């Protein structure tokens, strides 16, 4: 068994189809590197991201969850990201209140043209999560695969 193996976090990124998922595609087209630890789930809009999904990810052992959407004002569905913004603010504040590291969750607005920003955000977020180490406070050990 190898000791001191580098900690590779599990990071879930929820991306809206119209801006951020396209931004992530652009990061790929531009060959902008970011860690393979980030896995993207496509949703139609950031307003589709139920706080339950984020809690579920933590329950299942995710070490960080980031939600990306269109910039406020640019939502494909006009207003979706405004609701998402309030929900996520409330959720993050509550997680913080319970003493769960708030740095494990983040919202970033990434437009379809911001491939570079997408990659930079993911690099930075992954570094933050690596610094925090494993998520222990919300993981359900029963869900852990050995």
């Amino acid at each position, binding site marked *: 068994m190898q000791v001191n193996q580098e900690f590779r976090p599990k990071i879930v990124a929820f991306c809206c189809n119209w801006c951020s998922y396209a931004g992530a595609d652009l990061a790929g087209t531009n060959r902008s590197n970011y860690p393979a630890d980030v896995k993207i789930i496509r949703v139609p809009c950031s307003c589709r991201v139920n*706080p*339950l999904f984020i*809690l*579920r990810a933590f*329950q299942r052992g995710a070490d960080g969850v980031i939600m990306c959407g269109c910039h*406020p*004002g640019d939502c494909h569905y006009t*207003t979706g990201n*405004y*609701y998402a*913004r*309030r*929900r*996520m*603010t*409330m*959720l*993050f*504040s*509550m*997680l*913080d*209140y*319970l*003493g*769960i*590291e*708030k740095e494990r969750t*983040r*919202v970033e607005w990434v437009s379809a043209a911001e491939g570079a920003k997408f990659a930079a955000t993911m690099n930075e977020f992954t570094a933050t999560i690596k610094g925090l180490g494993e998520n222990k*406070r*919300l*993981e*359900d*050990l*029963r869900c852990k695969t050995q």
Partner: protein
Amino acid sequence: MQDTMMKRASELLADGTVVRVLGWKNGEFVYDPTPAVFDSAEALAQDFVYHDFCGSNLSKYLIELSRLEGKTLVFLKPCDSYSLNQLLTEHRIDREKVYIIGIPCDGKLDPDTVRSSAEGILSAVTEGDSVQVETMYGNVTLNKADCLLERCTVCKSHKVVVFDEMLGENGTVNPDSNRFDMVEKLEAMTPEERYEFWRGELSRCIRCNACRNVCPACSCEQCVFDSPTSGVSQKAAADSFEENMFHIIRAFHVAGRCTDCGECSRVCPQHIPLHLLNRKFIKDINTYYGEYQAGAEAGSRAPLVNFTMDDCEPNVIYKGGSK
């Protein structure tokens, strides 16, 4: 008060305004009265009670009762009236099917604190700043402030916000209730301290669902925790994760809709201060999106189904709002 209420209820039953009355009757003991429905003057005379242990919020029961034939008379304390308004906003109750009598409230007694000072309670009556407790072993006088339910010590409003008639004088909103003091105390702690605090509290949870069952905002036709397809229906309190999730999800579900009636904490058999979760949301909403009291006005739009274009960014919680 009990007699006035009973008299008025009997009149309204007699003249056909209502066909049933939602009130309280005593449980096994005087300090555990329970909500009850009465359909005649006789039934009222037999069981109807109203005293300072009648803390329970009756509004939630009207969801079912207002679907029945005929009007239901309900007695609402100030707290309960906010819940009713919120349920009206959410179209859960047909206003036409409810006759509301507002009753003033000066705070309800916490049976646990009273019992810790007096055994064998037969009755308890508040008089000014004191509580006269009649027990099997004689009378005891207690300081009222020490015996109140937590929510009553930081009462947000003495005002009944929706009624057809008031019995007695209506009160006013109390803007200086200090109800967020404890939330602020927790916010001032380090994350580790907060985590320890909540572990200490939430690890006592036995998932009895009392908080959910009593909560007027938790009145879904089918609760997500009872639905195997919702992905959150785990029941067993097997480890630290479980109660965290249950209470975060529940608090989030009622965020912006919770009127802070305090029933969750009142009924928790493990004495978990669940209201501190709800009040955190209420405080955050007030701070970030402007003062909002759920249920203060029927028809108001809950903050989480609302927005303004210049709402703060989620990173506001990373202190100061800057990245």
